[in-house]
């Protein structure tokens, strides 16, 4: 904010360096100064406001709820309203008593369920992210390569499913995958199989559901990245004798890493906490942290433990991502 823009610097000496003449002129100059000063202030104010909006948003919708959940995770269950104990209370109206129960976090480590569920979620999310990348990359590449007229059409087709309810699209998969569903009936009709394949209520159907639902989150950032790719680099590679696949591996792929990272994070993070898809498409052995959180909250009605699970999940998820970002930024700096 201390930085003064060049055009202001240029104007400033002119305004100050005028010899003092008639009172009226001076007065006019003064008001000129004031108004210019005012407008500069306002401009800064306007800019500050624009910057402040996302911060206020973050504060209201991320930090504040996070603080509340964090607070509850240190309370203990009780029967009543609200269903957890107060951290701070006036004991006999004389002194302030603060009670922090760290037992909730200890509990998460004692019972292998939580660690297993967390690892299960990581595995589901990792595999789905890789699948989404494998399917999404060629699609994004093809869209970026397409003629501008068809490109918009293709992009529209990627976004189009979003106009239908997410829940209905997941339900549609049940109709396709179930044992007397569309796919099995078709395969049996063609004679490829004699018995229906177990396509639904297992890990396969969850991977399929997540990959399908999150595909646009992978395609769009990848497309934005690949579309900006400088074609002349590929031409140069070709001129130097690189075959197309070699040019792709040494030029296109490394340059699209930011797109891959952005897309993968957009898929991976929500996939870890995914609840609806495993609930509808998953089998009983699909153990994910979202489901465990749900049963803590609703079946056990233990809000403090549920909050502790949520906080632990956030920490375990955010820390590796921040480390990753940190090293990426450092590498980028080194390169430049």
């Amino acid at each position: 904010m201390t930085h003064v823009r060049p055009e202001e610097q240029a104007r400033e000496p002119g305004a100050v360096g005028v010899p003092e003449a008639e009172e009226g002129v001076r007065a006019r100059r003064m008001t000129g100064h004031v108004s210019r000063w005012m407008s500069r202030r306002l401009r800064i104010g306007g800019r500050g406001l624009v910057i402040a909006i996302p911060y206020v948003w973050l504060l209201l919708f991320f930090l504040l709820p996070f603080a509340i959940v964090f607070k509850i995770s240190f309370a203990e269950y009780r029967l009543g309203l609200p269903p957890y104990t107060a951290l701070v209370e006036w004991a006999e109206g004389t002194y302030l008593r603060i009670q922090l129960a760290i037992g909730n976090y200890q509990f998460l480590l004692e019972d292998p369920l939580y660690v297993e569920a967390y690892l299960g979620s990581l595995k589901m999310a990792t595999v789905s992210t890789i699948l989404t990348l494998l399917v999404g990359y060629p699609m994004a590449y093809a869209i970026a390569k397409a003629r501008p007229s068809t490109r918009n059409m293709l992009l529209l087709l990627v976004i189009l499913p979003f106009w239908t309810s997410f829940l209905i699209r997941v339900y549609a998969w049940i109709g396709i995958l179930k044992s007397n569903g569309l796919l099995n009936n078709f395969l049996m009709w063609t004679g490829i199989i004699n018995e229906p394949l177990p396509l639904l209520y297992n890990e396969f159907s969850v991977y399929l559901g997540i990959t399908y639902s999150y595909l646009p989150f992978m395609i769009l950032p990848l497309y934005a990245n690949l579309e900006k790719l400088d074609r002349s680099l590929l031409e140069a590679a070709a001129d130097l004798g690189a075959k197309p696949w070699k040019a792709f591996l040494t030029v296109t792929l490394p340059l699209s890493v930011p797109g891959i990272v952005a897309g993968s994070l957009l898929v991976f993070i929500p996939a870890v906490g995914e609840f609806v898809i495993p609930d509808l498409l998953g089998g009983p052995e699909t153990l994910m942290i979202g489901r465990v959180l749900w049963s803590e909250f609703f079946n056990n009605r233990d809000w403090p433990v549920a909050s502790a699970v949520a906080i632990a999940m956030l920490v375990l998820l955010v820390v590796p991502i921040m480390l990753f970002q940190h090293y990426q930024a450092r590498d980028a700096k080194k390169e430049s």
Partner: protein
Amino acid sequence: MRQFTRSLIAGTAMAVAMAGGAVAQEEKVLNVYNWSDYIAEDTIANFEKETGIKVNYDVYDSNEMLEAKLLAGNSGYDVIVPTSTFLARFVQGDIVQPLDKSKIPNWKHLDEDLMKGLQANDPGNEHAAIYQWGTNGLGVIPEKIDAAMAGEEAPMNSWDLLFKPEYASKLADCGIYVLDSPSEIFPITMAYLGHPHNTDDPAHYQEAEELWMEIRPYIKKFHSSEYINALANGDACLAMGFSGDVFQAKFRAEEAGKDFTVGYVIPKEGTAMWFDTLAIPADAPHPENAHTFINYILQPEVIGGITDYVAYANAVPASEPYVSDEIWNDPAIFPTPEVKQKLFVDTPAGQKLDRLRTRTWNKIKTGR
């Protein structure tokens, strides 16, 4: 209760914007929170016409959803319909208020025996009236079960059909669904094993775990509402579920003209019965109107009309003339006195027992 819903949406899509504040002269508004598909089509309209009170009507599909909303505070609802075990916790935690029975003259129509049964959850019947009641049992498609058994006799009226691997293994292909709710599963399992239904002995839970582990490979889906669809479509041939939900599946299969029939069985070994009750949250903004509403519902012709529509039993014997014979005489809906003997009313579990149940259930479901 627990009627069919597509329903994660139903729970979340509820906008509750209400002005609070108890005033001497209550505004003519009432906020009702009930199970989905759990009232006759004209009940609310008739109530509004008769009393001039405007009703905001919201629905949920699980007790857990209702409980989470109430516990968060300031739910804004005036009348809620919790199932008896949840009601018990609301009573203990002062989350519902005692009813002023002088404002509910129709209280006299309530069946004394059933209200006595409810006392296990609401001592002295101070907080709630029975709305409808039912049982947890088995939804079956006899044609498909007979075909799967290939000539062998299947005990269609017994929990053995589900709990004995020799039957469950044969039915695996035609589809077995069970409720995904430890608080519903374990009382029934314990009763089947011959233990007290609300036992908190870890050894009993070990035994229950072994029982379930044996049949677990034959279960297609653990879910508390998907089986309605599955039975109606013929994707399931056996489902452990709530009586009314199975009837719902039955009606839907009939409507779709399927070539099979869905039936509901109260197993001969006995099962859990539950009451859905009318209660008023402690922080209800319109308690006066709420009393008026409960009194209105308990009129024999009103509650009879509801039973006739939702196919659950009510606790108002005088409503018989307003219920079709088909429903009133169906022993799966209004069980005979002999069957009633075998039913037990579940009591609420404490925090520790809840945790034991949930943990055991998680082990069973995930197989580890």
